[in-house]
């Protein structure tokens, strides 16, 4: 158990487990987990914002930017290498985030949420009208290659799954480091009392803007992977319901545990797939009830389960 307290050890263990799982999971489950992880990355960015007291209802913006970068790059320049595409998607999302971050960092609560939402809806509207980019139909995305390796069929699904798992473990470890860091504690303090933080001499706005850019980068990364995994991108990536799902996962998971974000994301995908199958018209209802239960029973999210266990152990 003390081994699990060390972030690198826990990450290595998690990655080993994910790799092993990759060889036994059926194709559909592997795709489900890949998508859940990609979206979990976006939700993790929101969790970072939530620690500072902000919720963005517009992360679809960055998700969509990342996805379109992966699609357009392949179509325009023939670049299909997933590492390069990820880097480009992250840079594009990070650049846009750096422009909007300092502006949005002046707003709080519902104003911040609505402004971030409107930015994503502007992109949605623009993409829908741009016939050169496929309009509402979107674009097909070529299958990615992995440093020259160009798998097809199940090996492609497996390679994407392993790539995504590696990213999730790496990003998860880094974000844990960030959350535990001095900056991470300042974010929590800002959520409690901005006035005090300003009066200690730190800039609340800068801290918020930094969290926003990090969330943008994670949004872009999740978008690149999703676009490549689905093989198709369209303006829906930036639609408000897409952003809503990320917020759903972030609230479901809470900000106490990083693995909880990815577990939460998998849960959402599972509930969606199964309810879609069995009650195609009422799956949002199932989702709503599910979230309601979590909020009532675990107000601090799924992550608080780990906290309770740790507390119980310490008291024992």
């Amino acid at each position, binding site marked *: 158990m003390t081994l699990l307290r060390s972030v690198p050890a826990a990450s290595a263990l998690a990655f080993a487990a994910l790799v092993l799982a990759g060889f036994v999971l059926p194709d559909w489950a592997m795709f489900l987990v890949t998508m859940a992880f990609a979206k979990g990355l976006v939700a993790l960015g929101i969790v970072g914002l939530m620690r500072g007291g902000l919720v963005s209802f517009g992360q679809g913006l960055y998700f969509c930017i990342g996805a379109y970068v992966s699609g357009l790059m392949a179509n325009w320049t023939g670049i299909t290498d997933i590492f390069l595409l990820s880097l480009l998607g992250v840079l594009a999302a990070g650049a846009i985030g750096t422009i909007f971050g300092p502006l949005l960092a002046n707003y709080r609560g519902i104003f911040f949420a609505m402004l971030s939402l409107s930015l994503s809806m502007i992109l949605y509207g623009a993409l829908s009208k741009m016939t050169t980019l496929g309009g509402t139909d979107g674009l097909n995305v070529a299958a990615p290659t992995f440093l020259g390796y160009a798998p097809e069929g199940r090996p492609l699904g497996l390679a994407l799954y392993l790539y995504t798992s590696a990213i999730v473990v790496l990003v998860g470890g880094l974000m844990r480091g960030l959350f535990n860091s*001095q*900056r991470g504690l300042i974010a929590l*303090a800002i959520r*409690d009392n901005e*006035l005090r933080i300003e*009066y200690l001499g730190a800039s609340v706005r800068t801290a918020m803007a930094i969290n926003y850019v990090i969330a943008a980068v994670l949004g872009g990364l999740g978008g690149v992977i999703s676009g490549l995994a689905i093989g198709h991108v369209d303006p829906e990536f930036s639609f408000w319901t897409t952003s809503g799902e990320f917020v759903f996962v972030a609230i479901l998971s809470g900000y106490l545990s990083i693995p909880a974000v990815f577990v939460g994301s998998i849960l959402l995908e599972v509930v969606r797939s199964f309810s879609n199958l069995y009650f195609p018209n009422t799956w949002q209802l199932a989702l709503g009830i599910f979230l309601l239960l979590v909020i009532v029973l675990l107000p601090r999210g799924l992550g608080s389960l780990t906290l309770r266990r740790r507390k119980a152990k310490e008291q024992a």
Partner: protein
Amino acid sequence: MSELALEAEALHKRFGAISAAEGITMGVPKGAIWSLIGSNGAGKTTFVNMVTGYVKPDHGRIAFEGRDITRLSPRQITRLGIRRSFQIPQLCAGLSVLENMLISLTINGEHPPSFWRPASHATEVDRAIDILERFRIADYRDRLMGELPAGVRKLLDIAMAMSGHPRVMLLDEPTSGVAAEEKYPIMDLVMEALSAEEVTILFVEHDMDIVTRYSQRVLAFYDGRIIADDAPDEVLADPDVQRYVTGEL
């Protein structure tokens, strides 16, 4: 001029019909320890708020070591070296006492806050506990703000304000809410810590024993104006002060 730590020139501030400052003027020499007294609503906190940039005066000018700071933000003013504690402690409710102290040390450390260095690094934790021990609140280190007695909250608020080498320290009612037997030890501690670095101190206080014992000079506020400004004994003997502030007449 440069011997003055803090200058206020004809500060005016109205809140609707209420005049909270009506020509407040003072020049506080470096290293001075002055107190501000006055009945409820006299404008003491408003003055502290104006000096620290939280409330902007309608007109008038504030200078710190000769530099105009009237239009600066609380953060900029804090960075220059003017620190304050709050009448109602301003703490981070979701964090423990230790974490609150760590925040303060982190922000005021030698290096800018790190994205990587753990907030609970042993070096900072030791220093934080050291400070909490000096303020005799180390026993509460793991408690959240909601569980703390008012006096502990007050002390934590002051301890947080004091980290980071202030040059001017404004204390808004440092002993209110603190148990009677703790008042003098706390004032001793604060004064000792600050006097070592020749910090200029202004403290708002309702307890006249504390005022007499710790301040070299007293400014009595009434209705947004300073009605007396002299050594403690002189001010407390002033009939206006006795009528409007201490209520002895």
